[in-house]
């Protein structure tokens, strides 16, 4: 699967003349859970959106030998802040079922198999009893779990999750990360933006540390160090931020 990794070369992103990402050259391995960390405004979401072709950028992004267009059906994306109309007439189950649409292709309707996938995904995030509820009736954390379920129902090769655990209680977070790790063990790949530095060594195999440019990238045990963290967040804060779980 090595040839399936994401290769990013000379990536630059500008927002109306303000630079958001500068000269990013990294590769993201497949079959691993890759974390993207960095302070607010570091460009984490921007990096994700450019990989997904959702914003304009300079440079190249390739998925193994493929261009993005050839693998898009196999990509599930959970946005950081879903700017959605929650009054849309749709219930929880149908929202998760939407995840199965991309692979169905045009015209075909979701059938038994798709409904089963949606049901299982809802059980994974422990939201099955809300199946018939309108999405407007959910709390922020419950809604987030529904979107994660939708990504799981999509059965993608790649998961792109932008701060997926914001607003989710600790127990659900553990359950979901376990599911993601199982999927990883089956060969799926994940890219996850995450804020909680104390979880980095526990969740991630690979890490990209970002602050407008790439500060470090590589296997977690090699790059999650005091020195690099100090480079991004300032040396004084490293101990407090990581809760002590850190190599030198």
């Amino acid at each position, binding site marked *: 699967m090595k040839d399936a990794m994401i290769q990013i070369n000379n990536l630059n992103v500008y927002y109306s003349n303000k630079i958001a990402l500068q000269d990013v050259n990294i590769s993201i391995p497949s079959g691993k859970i890759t974390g993207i960390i960095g302070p607010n405004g570091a460009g984490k979401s921007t990096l994700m959106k450019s990989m997904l072709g959702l914003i304009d950028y300079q440079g190249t992004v390739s998925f193994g030998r493929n261009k993005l267009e050839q693998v898009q059906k196999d990509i599930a994306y959970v946005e950081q802040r879903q700017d959605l109309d929650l009054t849309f007439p749709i219930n929880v189950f149908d929202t998760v079922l*939407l995840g199965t649409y991309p692979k169905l292709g045009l015209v075909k309707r979701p059938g038994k198999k798709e409904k089963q996938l949606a049901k299982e995904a809802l059980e994974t995030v422990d939201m099955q009893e809300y199946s018939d509820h309108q999405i407007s009736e959910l709390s922020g954390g419950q809604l987030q779990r529904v979107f994660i379920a939708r990504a799981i129902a999509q059965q993608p090769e790649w998961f792109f999750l932008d701060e997926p655990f914001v607003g989710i209680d600790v127990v659900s977070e553990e359950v979901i990360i376990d599911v993601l790790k199982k999927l990883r063990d089956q060969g799926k790949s994940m890219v996850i933006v995450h804020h909680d530095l104390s979880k980095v060594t526990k969740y991630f195999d690979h890490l990209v540390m970002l602050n407008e440019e790439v500060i470090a990238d590589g296997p977690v045990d090699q790059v999650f160090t005091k020195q690099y963290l100090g480079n991004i967040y300032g040396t004084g804060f490293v101990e407090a931020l990581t809760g002590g779980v850190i190599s030198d």
Partner: protein
Amino acid sequence: MINNFVDGLMNYQFLQNALITSLLVGFVSGILGAFIILRGMSLMGDAISHSVLPGVAVSYMFGLNYVFGASFFGILTAILIGYITEKSTLKNDTVIGIVFSSFFALGIILISFAESATNLYHILFGNVLAVRDSDIVLTAIVTVISLIFILIFFKELKLTSFDPVMAKAAGLPVKFFHYALMFLLTLVAVVSLQTVGTILVISMLVTPAATAYLLTDNLKIMIVLSALIGMLSSIIGLFFSYSYNLASGATIVLTAAVFFLLAFLFAPKKGLIVRNRLSRN
């Protein structure tokens, strides 16, 4: 009075034509309208229905069927609004306001140059009692195209309406569906000219759909209800128009508005009365 209307329907071809056309328009604007309001494009619908005016004028000048000119200007409006919004930092509703009022103004001037057959008043307010056979055929074609499009792409329309970002990330042609809907919207605006007139087309697109939205939590049911309410408004509106010699556009639109008001007050879950009772307990 109802007997009188039924008699008229039996005896007068023009009234039969009017009924068929307005039923078709009620149906097609009902099903399209559901997507228009869910995508937050009501204002866009208004813009397009006004912007077809210069197209109608140009068609008359060149002796073409007004469909061609009107469709051209409708699509041009959609593209222009999309382009300016993307290339400026202005909000979408501002851009819509600028573009459609300009086109409408251009239309008024062009209409005054175009001679004879053109009657600005009828274009603006509709004249359903003067519908010709060719208009019925046209309306039927547009209705069938729209219905087929929505049946075939229901799944994609649902996804791109609810979550365009996910749709785009998963590789769906989100822009295609946007412009396809704009195109159908234009066609509906064109065929509605006769029934309700340019100014009131937006009502047929938005009011029945909004009424249906208040009555259900399910997209499919909403679309069906929207079409039914659209058709019902058309029949009742036409009845009042014929019986009291009133402008058909106005009576149809007011009927739709009455349905909306009823739903706004009495809808089982989203109605004002139920909601008030719930918040008091």
